[in-house]
């Protein structure tokens, strides 16, 4: 990552980031336990959005299947939590599904380290395999997107059908402790919140690093002209596979944090609708900007929570209105608003930053 000179603008941006980080870390001082729990959930969603932005905003691959990667991470953590709650015995749902013995593949999830590793490795591995068969065969654009949707259907059907092993539609819920600390206690929740903030900041910095590197430049080149980059001598498939795998791993981390905050994971959370919602967060926030993706996830979910509380019967209309407003008036999302206003002020041509050639 090359060092840029410290212009005033850059210093202001850095101060802005530092202030945001400080605000996030000190949030437990100002908000109630319930709000903190909500915020923690939104931050977990922001992490998925970052990963999605890497592949969609920067590489031009639209995945409508990130729900699975998120879900696999979540299930890995849920299996650990469930086993800890049941003391290593078969969890309750196995009992009412007619299973008396703990299946073999559940056993290692008793160990926290194993569960966390699997929460990243399983989604990443699935993405790698999927990427291997698609990118190498130059399947891209809509075709890739449709494939990801197919994978979503397959995964959810499998999870629902194998009730004895996965908890079926009910999913996995009813946890008690994490590494011996009760999940219900406000202290544990606060620590988990800080862990989430740290993870978000860490992943944000990591994504910045990836984008700033030569690797990141190739990614953008793939987005803007895949054939050209091939003629120059790069193999786009390798880059696409790597970034898709990274993105899936990030979604897995988000899923693990989600389960810790929400206390349930079920197949409905990795279905088609949540997968598309994740893409919407990035679109609303502004794809091609990391901060936009994260903000989009937080804002959308906050709006959903607030609207549904204020108007339990009509909140979906407000969400719809919000989408329309953003799509019509802010084609570059919330993050693009600043530059959009600047452009209006100066009445110049838009700068060539952000997304030039939309992939889909």
């Amino acid at each position, binding site marked *: 990552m090359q060092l840029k000179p410290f212009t005033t603008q850059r210093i202001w941006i850095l101060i802005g980031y530092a202030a945001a980080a400080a605000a996030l870390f000190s949030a437990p001082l100002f908000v*109630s*336990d*319930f709000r903190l*729990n*909500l915020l923690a*959930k939104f931050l977990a969603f922001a992490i998925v959005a970052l990963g999605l932005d890497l592949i969609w905003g920067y590489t031009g691959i639209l995945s409508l299947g990130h729900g699975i990667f998120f879900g696999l991470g979540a299930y890995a953590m849920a299996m650990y939590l469930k086993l800890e709650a049941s003391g290593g*015995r*078969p969890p*309750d*749902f196995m*009992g*009412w*599904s*007619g299973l*008396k013995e703990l299946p073999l593949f559940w056993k290692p999830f008793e160990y926290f380290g194993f569960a966390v590793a699997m929460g990243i490795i399983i989604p990443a591995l699935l993405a790698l395999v999927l990427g291997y068969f698609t990118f190498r065969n130059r399947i891209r654009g809509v075709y890739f997107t449709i494939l990801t949707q197919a994978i979503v259907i397959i995964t959810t*059907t499998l999870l*629902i*059908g194998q*009730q004895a092993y996965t*908890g*079926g*539609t*009910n*999913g996995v*819920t*009813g*946890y008690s402790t994490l590494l011996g600390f009760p999940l*219900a206690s406000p202290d544990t929740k606060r620590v988990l919140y800080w862990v989430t903030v740290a993870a978000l900041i860490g992943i944000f910095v990591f994504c910045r690093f990836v984008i700033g590197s030569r690797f990141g430049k190739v990614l953008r080149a793939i987005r803007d002209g895949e054939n050209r980059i091939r003629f120059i001598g790069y193999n786009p498939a390798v880059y696409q596979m790597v970034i898709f795998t990274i993105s899936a791993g990030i979604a897995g981390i988000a899923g693990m944090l989600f389960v810790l905050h*929400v*206390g*349930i994971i*079920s197949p*409905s*959370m990795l279905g088609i609708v949540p997968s598309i919602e994740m893409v919407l967060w990035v679109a609303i926030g502004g794809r091609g900007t990391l901060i936009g993706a994260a903000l989009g996830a937080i804002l959308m979910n906050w709006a959903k*929570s607030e609207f*549904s*509380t*204020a*108007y*339990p*019967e*009509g*909140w*979906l*209309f*407000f969400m719809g*209105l919000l989408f329309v*407003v953003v799509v019509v*008036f802010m084609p570059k999302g919330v993050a693009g608003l600043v530059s959009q206003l600047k452009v*209006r002020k100066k*009445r110049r041509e838009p700068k060539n930053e952000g997304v030039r050639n939309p992939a889909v």
Partner: protein
Amino acid sequence: MERRLFYQYCLLLIAVSLVLAGCGGNNKAASTNEATNAPTEAANSGTSAEGEIKVGILHSQSGTMAISEVSVIDAELMAIEEINAAGGVLGKKIVPVLEDGASDWPTFAEKARKLISEDKVATVFGGWTSASRKAMKPVFEELNGLLWYPVQYEGLEASPNIFYTGATTNQQIVPSVSWLLENRGKKFYLLGSDYVFPRTANLIIKEQLKAEGGDLVGEEYTPLGHTDYSTIISKIKEAKPDVVYNTLNGDSNVAFFKQLKDAGITAQDMTTLSVSVAEEEIRGIGVDVLEGHLAAWNYYQTTDTPANKTFVENYKKKYGDDRVTADPIEAGYTAVYLWAAAVEKAGSTDVAKVKEAAKELEWDAPGGKVKIDGETQHIYKTVRIGEVQADGQFKELWNSGEAVMPDPYLKGYDWAASIQPTE
């Protein structure tokens, strides 16, 4: 010039959103009466004002489950209104706080947490699917809240923080299987949607068939929302069962019964008994296809009790003549009255005191006399098997006579030993 245009857009936008907000408010007032406008104000003021008791109502008002759950909300709001009109509880007015579970299980958990810790409601009436209940259960146990769950379900659960006013398996499925074995034949074909309730229910039915001399000739699951039953119907034709035990849910019932009729199989040729088809579903599926088919519930709109007469009358008066009452609607209505009676008896809305007071509490519900079982927090209910009539209502063929004691873990049945939890 351009900037002015931008501002004009913004103004237009604000105007549109204001209009929409107005509409939202109006709709709410129109559909669920004026009581619902109060909660948001009450919620903002934090702790409940003097002379008011806040209760949460948490069902899906959007998403796939809304169609079923909205009627339960209506029944619960009606019960609250009636109680308020009669002087409230402990001399205080009940104020409902509505939240939308959005057919999404984590949303149910989130909103339950919000109702208990932010709104500080005395109790919550809510849930429909087992998944939504399972999602809310840890929240209620953690925050020591109180949930009233109004739908029949697969049993094998008894949370200290939940009252179950719907039937458990021994109040619906088990007696209906026994009745079918006695009256309709031994060969059973199990058909269900692929989720927890049908799978668990069928696990129980299979054990019962083994013990009571029935034969299992087939078992099929289809995904929720599945609409093509031609293959399954041919399998059914081939297997020639005496009874198809139907645990399909939602839209699938429409497709299944239509295609069954198209295949030339009528209720005279083969018995089907459904556990998720009530009066409301009959309206959706069509009486012509369903006539003569059976269902097992604890309540029908036609159930002949004095309490039901006024209940149906009031419900229709309030929500329209075209509306029907059904088992979960009655259970939601009953839940509100049972809670109010327990609070009155306890002299407080404190969860522990209400639970204590609720033990062995009796009430004349529209579906017959009910009693809360202190140990399991389920209620005693009368089992009823009904046949769909040409007018879209049920004719009761059999009932259990007296209210059946709830037995969520089927401890009273020797054959169920393998289903009971090991702990």
